[in-house]
């Protein structure tokens, strides 16, 4: 068993680490993983009271590389580097930040493309369907490993925010603050529909081979491309697309063919190609299911207030006005349920033009708010 490292430099250079777990974990679907690995990165230094740890949960296509760069690879910048780092809103000179690739992922943690030691072959289709609860449970084990009994905060945007919300329900004593950004208490029928289109694109790709494409030496690239295109469109706002692309032509004139005519088509194809290069289709399928299944109120007869009753954390909930995938109304449902439970909660609706993706972008009002909230957490942490 590898000794987990609990300190790291607050310089931008980071190194991924691996935590191996030999205690079986029972997943919500009933399957049991006998052993598994989680890849993670840390930034900053855990203080002697172990009270300044912040867990950052990733959304659909990101992973453990949250901030900074790897030595010798200056272009691979962490996906939330504008938010997390020395002197940034989540200041790694004060907080010990952890990024982790979730179970079922394709960036090093145990997932469909990992070798199943029982068969000696990649898990492929046999890898179980995971849920937000499973992810949170596995993250809690990583926290145990790192000696963190209670996080100062757990934070995330989108699917990452669902994890931070679930943390407050599953482990109410183990975090003081939850940052729930661009979130929804569950997916709407429209959200599920987009996910199903993405899945069908992958599953019906002849190269999918029922999920066991690794042994055929192919990947369902075409399906994955379409899946990414559909997803990507839902992360942007109509206005943002109009601003960025409008009806601009790729070659300055129409060619009356099925080649790329408009800039938006070129952009989508480029994004899709890039994505299909590095992302695993089986992971994509599972992550869309993670989203679909997330519904903490489900087991409480649809009552979110009841579902959040165990929570003890204080919350910062943030939504973005042009986010039509997880609209501000959905965040307000969370806020109402928190108010019903008399939790400490601050809710801000950022007027940003960028749609769902706004949570990843550098918006001054948004970042100042997060910075102010972490300042508050730092003061509390210092007073304990």
């Amino acid at each position, binding site marked *: 068993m590898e000794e987990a490292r609990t300190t790291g430099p607050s310089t931008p250079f980071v190194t991924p680490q691996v935590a191996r777990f030999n205690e079986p974990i029972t997943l919500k679907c009933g399957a049991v993983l006998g052993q598994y690995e989680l890849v993670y990165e840390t930034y900053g230094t855990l203080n002697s009271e172990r009270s300044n740890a912040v867990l950052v949960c990733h959304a659909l296509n990101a992973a453990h590389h949250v901030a900074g760069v790897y030595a010798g690879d200056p272009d691979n910048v962490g996906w939330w580097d504008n938010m997390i780092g020395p002197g940034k809103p989540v200041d790694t000179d004060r907080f010990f930040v952890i990024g982790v690739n979730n179970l079922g992922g394709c960036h090093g943690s145990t997932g469909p493309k990992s070798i199943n030691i029982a068969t000696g072959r990649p898990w492929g289709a046999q890898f179980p369907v995971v849920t937000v609860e499973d992810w949170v449970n596995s993250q809690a084990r990583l926290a145990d490993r790192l000696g963190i009994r209670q996080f100062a905060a757990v934070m995330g945007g989108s699917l990452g925010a669902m994890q931070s919300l679930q943390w407050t329900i599953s482990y109410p004593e183990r975090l003081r603050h939850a940052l729930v950004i661009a979130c929804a208490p569950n997916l709407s029928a429209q959200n599920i529909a987009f996910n199903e289109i993405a899945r069908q694109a992958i599953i019906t790709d002849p190269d999918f081979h029922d999920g066991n494409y690794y042994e055929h030496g192919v990947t369902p690239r075409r399906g994955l491309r379409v899946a990414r295109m559909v997803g990507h469109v839902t992360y942007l706002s109509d206005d943002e697309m109009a601003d960025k692309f409008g009806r601009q032509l790729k070659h300055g004139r129409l060619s009356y063919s099925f080649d790329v005519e408009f800039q938006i088509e070129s952009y989508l194809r480029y994004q899709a190609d890039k994505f299909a290069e590095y992302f695993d289709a089986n992971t994509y399928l599972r992550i869309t299911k993670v989203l679909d299944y997330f519904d903490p109120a489900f087991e409480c007869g649809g009552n979110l207030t009841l579902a959040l009753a165990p929570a003890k954390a204080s919350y*910062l909930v943030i939504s973005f006005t042009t986010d039509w995938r997880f609209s501000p109304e959905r965040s*307000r449902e969370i*806020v*109402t349920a928190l*108010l*019903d439970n*008399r939790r*400490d*909660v*601050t*809710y*801000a*609706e*950022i*007027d940003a033009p960028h749609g769902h993706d706004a949570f990843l972008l550098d918006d001054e*009002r948004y970042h*100042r*708010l997060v910075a*102010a*909230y972490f*300042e*508050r957490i730092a003061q509390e942490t210092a007073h304990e």
Partner: protein
Amino acid sequence: MNNATGIQRSDFAAIAEWVKPGKRVLDLGCGDGTLLNYLKQQRSIIGYGIEIDDARILACVRNGVNVIQGDLERGLSDFADNSFDYVILSQTLQAMKNSERIIKEMLRVGLEGIVTFPNFGYWKNRVQFARGHMPVSDNLPYQWFDTPNVHLCTIADFERFCRERGIRIVERKVLTNGATVSVWPNFLGSLAVYHFGS
């Protein structure tokens, strides 16, 4: 929506006198959270504010106050019936487009309401008006062309409003320069503070 300048903080003390310790308070248009922090210190309340302005939301976070960003003109639909002990509207009533609806909403969400507003019937206002000008004062620091105040009223107006709608006035405090006014309040008082219930 508290006025950044010219605010008369004397209403805070009156409000704190009425609010019982440990109760749940919702402050509509909470500004930078000063009143909620004051009530937290004085009365150990559990407080939340509603505020529309980004900069004031940020100030609330810096001041450690729970704040929900929202537009009071859209009502309080995120808040359940009787979910607060007190709903406060401090120096904001006169700037609301729909003053009647917000008072009704206060009594739906809260068991009791507390409202403060500049008394338009204050003698200094009457003098300025008699001289042919719209009043400008500490409590009404705006010129006619830049004022956010669209529904100014007098003490007599507000009490008639409550009477006609069956709103029970629990307590009233009228202030001028921080001192309590007991005679001719509608003439001598510049700021009115009301505690009411349904």
